[in-house]
């Protein structure tokens, strides 16, 4: 994984989010990773999900993205979409169970955004998490980095 990719992952995974003043608590955004190279950034029960920089680089130039229907309730590991790189159509799984609240429509016209900014502009869906405990089984940033290093060796 490149230095830039590590920096991006760290910046996203460690970013804190503070609610407006009406709320006294602040919520840390917790980002975790799956062995299928998806990420989940949980912000107070709403997850932003997509594929990681590692996956985007391994897939190559992404030319088409199929996104889930807003309102769909999907279980963890169900297919939520497809990303097509030049030669391959690859399934993207729900990293966590929940309801699709929003999809990133920008990807339909600019699928390469996933290559350029997978954890920021290239997110795929926002999900209302139905089973937060599923995140307990996912990898932290450090564990995911080691997982990727092992896969690459």
């Amino acid at each position, binding site marked *: 994984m490149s230095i830039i990719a590590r920096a991006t992952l760290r910046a996203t995974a460690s970013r804190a989010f503070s609610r407006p003043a009406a709320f006294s608590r602040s919520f840390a955004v917790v980002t975790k990773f799956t062995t299928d190279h998806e990420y989940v950034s949980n912000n107070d029960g709403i997850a932003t999900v997509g594929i990681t920089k590692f996956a985007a680089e391994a897939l190559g130039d992404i*030319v088409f993205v199929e996104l889930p229907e807003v309102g769909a309730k999907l279980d963890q590991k169900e297919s939520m979409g497809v990303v097509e790189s030049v*030669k391959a159509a690859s399934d993207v799984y729900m990293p966590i169970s929940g309801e699709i609240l929003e999809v990133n429509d920008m990807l339909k016209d600019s699928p390469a955004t996933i290559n350029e900014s997978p954890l920021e502009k290239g997110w795929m869906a926002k999900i209302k998490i139905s089973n937060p405990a599923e995140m307990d089984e996912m990898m932290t940033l450090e564990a995911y980095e080691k997982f990727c290093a092992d*896969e690459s060796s």
Partner: protein
Amino acid sequence: MAPVRWIRLRNVPLVRQLRLEEALFRAPSGTWVVTNTFGSAGYDDAGEGERADGAERHVHAIAMGISGKPELLLDEALMRERRVPIVRRFTGGGTVVLDRGTLLVSLISGADALPAVRPFPHELMAWTAAELYAPLLAPILAPHARESFGLVEQDYCLGTRKCAGNAQAISGGRWVHHTSFLWDYSSEPMALLKVPARRPAYRGERSHEDFLVGLSTVLPSRRAFWERLEPALASAFGTRVEQSAVCVSATDGGRALAALEEDARTRAAEHLRVKTCLVDWPPAI
């Protein structure tokens, strides 16, 4: 170790072939190779490669990738005239004209069979080129073949001329890898295709004629290709190959093919999804 099961098809409609593959892809495990050709048995089994240069060929179908847009890829006037079926694959990749000069080889496998091959596009291409197709072709390449087989960017080439296209679908640890080998290139059916906007750098500005090469120019026969496939598969996958009888939908009433399809759907069970479809284009005037 489980065997590689080789399903041999001939003249089976592409849409049925792809749906069969899609079901096997959704099966939780197992390795299959599905091959298909179009044309007479005599042509496929002939000791010498038959040529059809110059004559208009029957185009069996045109296959597009999962996101292909016919209006951008195909010549509308010619398609309207020739009424060629268009099939949208469940895999990525580009557009292929399928006629009797095309040899289709699809590999369906996964991490259970090949744990060392990570299910990412370039790695699948590199593995198939180095471990399967190069060993398959090397012993039967004609002495006059000056250029060896290999992967150039994302294409299979003899030297720097493309001799086969490929496309893939990947789901978790499972994958499908399609290869469409060009047996004898004819420029005539290629007129159905527009020059794609996205072209590999190594192609440069070359026309189809300068960019493509058929295997018939360097192999003794199609039979030699098929005979080499079985030992090459056994070596690449490190297991034995079980070969089905040739399944020809037009002559066996479709029973053998229907049985294969039912078996594949049963294996896929609740994971079955069908993205392969016929595309109705161009629209009626």
